[in-house]
C-alpha cells in the first residue's frame, strides 16, 4: 500500500511528459489530417535548441532561474524557423494527395531532419542538467522527487486548459473547429483555411519542440532522441482517438498510470504494457476512446 503514492506520482509525471510530447501530433492530425512523423524531429530539435541555448545562457553566467524561459524560447524559435518552411515549402503541395502519401512525405522529412541534426550538432551528446536540480525536491511516500517534475505537470495542465479554452471560448477556436469539421465548407464560407493550416502546423511543431526542450534537462540529448517519442506519441493519440485533444489527455493519463503500476508491481511486463493497452482499446473502440466515426461525403 505504501507504494501507491509513488505509483500515482510517477504515473502523473510520465503522463504529463507524454501529453506535452503527443498533443501536437493529435492537433495536427485533427485539423490537417496529417499523421506527422516529422513530429519526432521537432521534439529532437526542441531538445537540441533547449540544451544549446540554455547551456550558452548558463555559461554566460546569467540568472539560472531564467533558464526555464530560455527552454521555452528554444521551442518558440524551432517552431518559427522550421514549421513555416516545411508547411509552405512542401506540405501545402501535398494536401490534395492521399493521406498515405503525406505520411510518407513526413517520414522522408523525418529522416532528412535526423541527418540535419547530426550536421548541425554532431553526434556527441548535449547536457543541460542545471534546471532539473535548481528548484530542489519534494517527498512522496518517503521518496524524493525533483520539483522540476511539477513544472512538467503544470505545463501539461496549462496546455490542456489553454487549448480547450482557445477551441471553445474564442472566435479563432470556433473557426478552427469549423475547419476541423469541414475544411471545404469553411473555405466556401470565407475562412482562410490555408492560414489555419500554417498556424496549426506551427503550433503542433511548437508543442513537440516544447516537449523536447523541457525534457532536455533530464536526459542526454543525442541523435535518435525523437524516434521513440514518435512511437509513444502515436500510441497515446491512438488510444485517445486520432485528432481528439481530450483523447490525447486521457490516453496520456492511462498510459502513464499503467506503465507506472507495471514498473512498481510487475516490471516483467513493462515492455509491452503500453501496447497491450492500445490493442485492448482498439479491440473495443477501433477509433480510440474519443474518436468519432467520420461522415461519408458524397
Amino acid at each position: 500500500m505504501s507504494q501507491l503514492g509513488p505509483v500515482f506520482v510517477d504515473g502523473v509525471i510520465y503522463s504529463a511528459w507524454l501529453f506535452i510530447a503527443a498533443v501536437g501530433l493529435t492537433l495536427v492530425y485533427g485539423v490537417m489530417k496529417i499523421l506527422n512523423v516529422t513530429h519526432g524531429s521537432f521534439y529532437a530539435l526542441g531538445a537540441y535548441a533547449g540544451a544549446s541555448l540554455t547551456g550558452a545562457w548558463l555559461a554566460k553566467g546569467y540568472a539560472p532561474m531564467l533558464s526555464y524561459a530560455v527552454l521555452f524560447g528554444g521551442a518558440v524559435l524551432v517552431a518559427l524557423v522550421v514549421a513555416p518552411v516545411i508547411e509552405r515549402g512542401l506540405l501545402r503541395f501535398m494536401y490534395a494527395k492521399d493521406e498515405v502519401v503525406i505520411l510518407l512525405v513526413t517520414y522522408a522529412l523525418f529522416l532528412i531532419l535526423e541527418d540535419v541534426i547530426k550536421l548541425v550538432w554532431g553526434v556527441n551528446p548535449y547536457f543541460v542538467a542545471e534546471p532539473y536540480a535548481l528548484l530542489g525536491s519534494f517527498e512522496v511516500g518517503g521518496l524524493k522527487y525533483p520539483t522540476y517534475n511539477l513544472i512538467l505537470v503544470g505545463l501539461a495542465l496549462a496546455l490542456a486548459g489553454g487549448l480547450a479554452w482557445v477551441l471553445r471560448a474564442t472566435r479563432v477556436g470556433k473557426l478552427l473547429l469549423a475547419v476541423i469539421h469541414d475544411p471545404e465548407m469553411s473555405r466556401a464560407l470565407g475562412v482562410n483555411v490555408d492560414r489555419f493550416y500554417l498556424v496549426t502546423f506551427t503550433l503542433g511543431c511548437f508543442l513537440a519542440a516544447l516537449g523536447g526542450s523541457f525534457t532536455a534537462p533530464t536526459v542526454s540529448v543525442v541523435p535518435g532522441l525523437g524516434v521513440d517519442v514518435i512511437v509513444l506519441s502515436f500510441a497515446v493519440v491512438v488510444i485517445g482517438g486520432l485528432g481528439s485533444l481530450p483523447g490525447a489527455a486521457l490516453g496520456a493519463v492511462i498510459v502513464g498510470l499503467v506503465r507506472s503500476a507495471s514498473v512498481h508491481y510487475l516490471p516483467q511486463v513493462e515492455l509491452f504494457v503500453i501496447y497491450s493497452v492500445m490493442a485492448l482499446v482498439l479491440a473495443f473502440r477501433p477509433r480510440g476512446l474519443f474518436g468519432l466515426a467520420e461522415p461519408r461525403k458524397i
Partner: protein
Amino acid sequence: MKKLRLATLGLLAAALAPAGVLAQQPVKIGFVMFLSGPAASPFGVPAKNAADFVVEELNAGKGPAPYGKVGFGGSKIEMVAIDEAGPATSVVTEYRNLVQRSNVDLVIGYISSGNCLAVAPVAEELKKFTTFFDCGTPRIFEDASYQYVFRTSSTATKDSVGAALYVKDAKPGIKSIAGLNQNYAWGQDSWGDFELAMKVLVPGIEVKTSQMPKLFAGQYNAEISALLGAGADVIHSSFWDGDLEALILQGGPRGLMAKSMTVLTTGETAMHKLAAQIPDGTVLGARGPFGPYAPDNAYNRWFAKGFESRFQAPPNYASYQMAQAILGVKLAWEKAQDASGGKRPTNEQVGKALEHMTYEGPGGTVRMALGKGHQAIMETAYGQTKLVNGKLTLVNVKRYPAEVVNPPEGVKSADWIKSGFKK
C-alpha cells in the same frame, strides 16, 4: 600486339619482383563501427578516432616498440571505414561489400553483440580474417568455433563477475541486490551473470527487483522510484549511452546512488562528460583495464597522450579496445610475414599467428586464451567516484586478474559461474 607485349612484360615483372616489393603494397583494412545512431557518440566515434590516430602513427613508424615498423610489416595501412548502423541483415550485406567489392585484406570492427554473431559465420564463409574489437557476448566462441574470426577484447562475463567481486569486497555484509538494465541481449546477459555471480558469492542474497526498461526509454522516474523503494544494498546497471547518462541525471538528484551502492559497468564512458553529476561513491567500470584503470606503460602513455592532444578529449574504453585490436593484428601480420620470409602473409597465416598470442597494449596484457586461441582475456578493475576540486577521481580501485574473472578454456561462462568459479 604492342598491348600484348606490355601485358606480358608486366606479368613477368610481377613474377620476378622481390617479395619485399609486394609486401610494400598497402594493407587495406575495413573498419566497422557505429558512425550514426545512439551508439556512435559513446563507442563508434571514439573507436574511429582511435583507429585514425593509431593508423596514422603506425604509418609514420611512430608506434612504441615492438610496434615501431611502418604500417603492417613495412606496408602502409589503408583505412576503409563503414557505419555499423542498421539491422543485422544490412550489416552483413555491408560486410560482404567490404570483402567482395572493396577487397579489403582484413576487417576490424563491430560493437553490437548481435552484429558480431551475424558476421562471424559470414567471415568464415568468405575466409576473411576478421577481428571483433568491442562486442561483449560470450556466445561467439562458446557456441561455435572459427578459423578466421578473433576477438581481442574480453567478454561481458568479465564485467559482471568483476562487478560482483567488487561489491562483495566493498560492501561487507551485503544482503540484497537490485538491477536496472536494458531489455535486450546485453542488459539481460549482464544482469543474468551478475545475479548468478552474487548468488554464488553471497548465498541467500535477496534480489529486491530487476527493472528492464526498453532500450533508450529515456524517462526513468518510475524505475528510480521502484529502486529507491526497494532499498537494496547494491544496484547493478549495464546501461550505456543516453540511457546511462539519463540514469545519472535523473537518479543523482533523487539520491539513488547515495541510498544504494550503484555499479555502472560501462560508467567510464560518462565520467568525463558528467563529472559533476555523478554522485560520490558510484562504482564505475570500464569493461576492462582501460581509461582511468589503464596501466602506466609505454603504450598507454603513447596512446592516451597522443589521442587527447589530437581530439581534445581522453580516449574511452572503446578507443582502447580499437587500439589494442589494431596492435594485436599488426603483431600477428608481422609475425606471419617474418615466418614466410618477408612475403605478404595470407589471411590463414595471420590467423595462425594471432592464435594463443600474448601481447602488450595500452590496456595492459592481452592473452588470446579462450576459444582455441581466438578469444582474448584481460584483467579488470572497478573503483568508486570521488569529486575532488571539481575533478572526478576514482578511489578504492580494485583490480582482478584475468584468470579470476574469465572462465577457463572450454567452459561456458554461465556454467563456470554456477560451478562456483571452478578452475
